[in-house]
């Protein structure tokens, strides 16, 4: 059985100006242990799909299933990493990481051990008692990653988490995420508008059409793992990148025409 199943999902946002169909007839299933990336032009409804999986918003029609059960409310089993980090500025790094276990009522002792391990894993031990405001963007996103993982989610949802970072930090973060995923077998559903990012990370890349968002194409990425940055120079990589790029370009142009 698929871990996540989106079944003919449609989302319409109503406003005073009229209804906007953000996502239309979107179907996708994600298996346990898979890393799936959703790429598409901005405004195509990628984030809407992710928000429906997390349970932040409900689909207008269609079904979102987690292990066969419909997602009806905000689902802690779907841990989210936000583009804006969304760290609690009044909590230290350690307290941020312990937030999930704390609200679940896990004892202080176990919490401490958990947070120590995760913080060590991303190399932030010496910043454990710092506040997020004292950290750089890359460090903040590492804390967000720790915080999501410490809550032991079934699936990690990533909403363009590295988009606000500079190019170098971004590559480092991608490698770190890859390491963590390959070590723990964490299932990941990742959203990005960077094809390179999608190709480095994913088992499967889903290309989304312009609004209303639908699945336009799905590619299995069979590049060998562990993937290093130099995989980007191989013929295999370039071939698939060109294919995806052509598709995305079409959609970007389509959306530019339709939105004037």
């Amino acid at each position, binding site marked *: 059985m698929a871990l996540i199943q989106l079944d003919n999902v449609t989302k319409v946002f109503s406003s005073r100006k009229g209804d906007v169909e953000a996502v239309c007839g979107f179907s996708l299933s994600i298996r346990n242990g898979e890393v799936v990336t959703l790429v598409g032009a901005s405004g195509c409804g990628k984030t809407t799909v992710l928000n429906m999986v*997390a349970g*932040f918003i409900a689909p207008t029609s269609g079904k979102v299933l987690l292990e066969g059960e419909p997602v009806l409310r*905000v*689902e*802690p089993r*779907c*841990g*989210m990493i*936000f583009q*804006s980090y*969304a*760290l*609690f*500025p*009044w*909590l230290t790094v350690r307290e941020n990481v312990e*937030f*999930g276990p704390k*609200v*679940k009522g896990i004892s202080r002792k176990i919490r401490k051990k958990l947070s120590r391990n995760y913080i060590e894993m991303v190399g932030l031990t010496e910043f454990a008692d*710092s*506040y*997020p*405001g*004292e950290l750089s963007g890359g460090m903040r996103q590492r804390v967000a990653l720790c*915080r*999501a993982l410490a*809550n032991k989610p079934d699936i990690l949802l990533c909403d363009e988490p590295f988009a606000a970072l500079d190019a170098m930090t971004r590559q480092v973060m991608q490698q770190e995420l890859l390491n963590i995923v390959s070590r723990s077998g964490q299932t990941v559903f990742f959203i990005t508008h960077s094809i390179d990012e999608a190709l480095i990370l994913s088992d499967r890349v889903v290309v989304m059409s312009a609004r209303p968002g639908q699945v336009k194409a799905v590619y299995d990425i069979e590049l060998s793992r562990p993937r290093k940055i130099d995989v980007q120079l191989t013929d295999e990589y370039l071939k698939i990148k060109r294919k995806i790029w052509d598709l995305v370009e079409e959609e970007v142009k389509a959306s530019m025409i339709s939105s004037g």
Partner: protein
Amino acid sequence: MKETELTFWRASVYGSLGLVCFLGLWELAIRFHLIDPFFLPPPSQIFTRAIRMTTGPDAVLLSDIKISASRVLAGFSLSVLAGVPFGLVMGVSSVVRATLNPIISIIRPLPALSWIPLSMLWLGIDEQQKYAIVFMGCFASILVYTTDATMRVDPVLRRAARNLGASDFQVLRYVILPGALPDLLSGLKVVLAIAWTCVISAEMVGANSGLGFRIWTAKEWSDTGQVLVGMISISVTVLILDIAFRGIERLLLPWQRKASGT
């Protein structure tokens, strides 16, 4: 023009200089008979008057300050205890907000002074009446400040907390309350000044003690020295309370001091 920030010490030097000049001109204006000391006594005379009011046989100043300050603090604490929880709920629930907004809109513009007649009829002129005046002057403002502060908490933080498994109550306790605290505290600082206005006015209209009462009686005797001592005492007390409040703020918001920005 380039505007540079002065260091603390340089700013203090300029500040003291300004103050000394101001007091000096005041003193000289009276010494040279430009102003009649009956209407405006010189600083030197106010100073000796203040000494007499704190040390002499009829030393009432300190006890007046204590009485007024405790009225302010009691009334202010009451309105915080009532206003903050209410404001939090209003900030979170649009239904509660819509229900209570008309009532608050009617109460809020009323100056605390306008409650004096009713409160005196209901409660006389004893302590409860002073607390009631402060309460009526502060409650609605605290409510509005709290509601606004609550609504300004970044919604993505609420989302993040719920995504981590927090219940509605936990979101309120662990996210909205600490998230609203910085704005809330700066609001409360403003309201604390309002509370002083309330107490002084209430004491001028009906009381047997307190700074407002002291100033008003002095006026009856045309004792401008005592009026000014009373007024300066208000300034100084409010300043001291403000410094104390800043201390509390720093204690409650350690993350704001250290953070360079979000």
